[in-house]
């Protein structure tokens, strides 16, 4: 075992995949300047050259469309979105073009595109730099969506995303970037569509999306001795691993989903809908979703923290359900 940070795991995955396949390239703002603002492309320019590491002007619509057009004609772009809300500038290119071209062409067009989108909240950067947007992309047919919450998953899921033949939205959380975790040496893949049971328990199933995995594990620790919490990190939202979530609900009869996006029309609502549809008879309590406040995130630290689900909120919600 060795220690590696989340962002270095992402860099390592790209190094391996670019060495493996010449059609893989990286495009986005600042990716060719000192390893990018998040240090998410360190060493790529030096190793693979300017042809395969393309820093762009701030023209999200053009370079998103460019990535799609290049994928239509044989390349496998890794498209970096510096802050995920910047996607909105290119929404036609994401939702009308990238999402729809494979289907509209009757399957003649394949789009092996990985969108690395840096997301997250709680960093006091205010509403236009902090928003959880996974539900928007989940709602539009045509994307796979993953949200790694560990260093191991960041590398393994990114490698699977790059090798996949459809657009995969790979949502990174900047809060996780720089803290080292133990990982194995060498290469590994994490398949898309597989949840991770982060902690086994028998009383309440807590399903997390992205960063709240850590908060749910902290809450489970606090509740030790009173409530035995099972924490399932969904990891992949499309495809969604209903077998793992369902098996947990069959055991506990209680489901809480935690994410940072607002509850209204969120991914948690969809997970609850599917559990109700497929595992209704196993539920012993009303399934719940704990999410962010239903408003653009405010700047002031006290205000922002109050908008996001915290460890105490998870502890309280679990207590009420158990």
């Amino acid at each position, binding site marked *: 075992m060795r220690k590696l940070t989340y962002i270095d795991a992402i860099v390592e995955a790209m190094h391996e995949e670019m060495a493996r396949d010449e059609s893989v390239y990286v495009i986005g703002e600042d990716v060719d300047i000192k390893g990018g603002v998040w240090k998410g492309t360190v060493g790529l320019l030096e190793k693979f050259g300017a042809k395969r590491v393309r820093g762009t002007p701030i023209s999200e619509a053009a370079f998103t469309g*460019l990535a799609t057009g290049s994928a239509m004609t044989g390349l496998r772009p890794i498209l970096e979105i510096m802050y995920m809300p910047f996607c909105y500038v290119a929404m036609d290119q994401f939702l009308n073009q990238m999402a729809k071209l494979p289907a509209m062409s009757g399957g003649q067009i394949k789009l092996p595109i990985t969108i690395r989108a840096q997301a997250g909240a709680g960093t006091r950067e205010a509403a236009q730099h902090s928003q959880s947007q996974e539900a928007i992309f989940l709602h539009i047919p045509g994307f796979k969506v993953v949200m790694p919450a560990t260093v191991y998953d960041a590398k393994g899921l990114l490698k699977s995303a790059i090798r996949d033949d459809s657009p995969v939205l790979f949502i990174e959380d900047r809060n996780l970037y720089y803290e080292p975790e133990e990982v194995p040496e060498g290469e590994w893949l994490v398949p898309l569509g597989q949840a991770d049971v982060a902690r086994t328990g028998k009383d309440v199933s807590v399903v997390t999306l992205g960063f709240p995995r850590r908060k749910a594990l902290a809450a489970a620790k606090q509740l030790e001795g009173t409530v035995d919490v099972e924490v399932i990190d969904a990891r992949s939202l499309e495809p969604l691993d209903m077998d793992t979530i369902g098996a947990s609900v069959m055991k506990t009869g209680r489901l809480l989903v935690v994410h940072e996006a607002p509850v209204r029309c969120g991914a948690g609502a969809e997970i609850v809908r599917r559990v109700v549809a497929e595992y209704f008879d196993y539920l012993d309590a009303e399934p719940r979703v704990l999410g962010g406040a239903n408003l653009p995130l405010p700047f002031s630290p006290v205000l922002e923290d109050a908008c996001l689900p915290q460890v105490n909120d998870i502890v309280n919600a679990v207590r009420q359900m158990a």
Partner: protein
Amino acid sequence: MLRTMLSIRLFEQRVKQLYRAGEIVGAIHLYIGEEAIATGVSEALRRDDYVFSTHRGHGHLIAKGGDLKRMMAELMGKATGCSRGCGGSMHMFDPSIGFMGGNGIVGGGIPLALGAAFSAQYRGADSVAVAYFGDGGMYQGVLHESLNLAAKWKLPFIAVCENNRYAATTPVAKSAASHDFSTYAAPHGIPGVRVDGNDCLAVHKAAKQAVARARAGQGATLLDCETYRVEPHCGIIPDDRPQEERDEWGRIENDPIERSRRRLKITQPQFAKLRAEIESGLDEAVEFARQSPMPKIGSCDA
């Protein structure tokens, strides 16, 4: 080129009849009157060059070598269609001949073509990519982003504006501060050429230069091809353009096909023979489409 233009014209006239008869449904945008542009451009292209089309794209596909049978089948929503019935009029695809699809969003295909140009440069191929768009596309920000990137990275990219003077039903005079769209190239330091879009030779000459420049690694070109759409914007929208304007553009001397016929000194009997040949191919295409099966439910699940 005369044959190609006439094929497009007669195909579109057939589509219009079938649309009126209810055999073709949906949104149909006809290319009648604009045939010289796709024809002149494609005459300068190879099979391995890329074309990204618009909502008004039947002519672009025919000029690139599209199969009339599969096109007609697509318009009738059949499984044998060039997009297996999943796309329809605005989303025909034939990647095997470099036809990378129509687009229902004005300007939406421009950065996609930029990506194909990028891909060609990346792979060391000498293919070029053409983005068609109308004067309506000139008002989209992504065009200007794309021209900048194409110029900066010297991509083999050719932006072809089919300036038919109306964005849906709004005239250029009402939307644009500058009416000469070729000037939009200058800030990016690439050639911008204004062309008589109803003269296939003029279009071809300009396209040939643009293609040669792109293949030689010298970068992008913007063509502003002036033309006029003879039909209304779309099958369902009434045409309230001024009658005198329509009469002027509708004069036989302004028709791109007639101009070409006169120049080539093709006699009326020779022309009638050519027309009959094409019509017979269209009969076959319509019959093929009619006889083709409907797609199976679920067959467009990507």
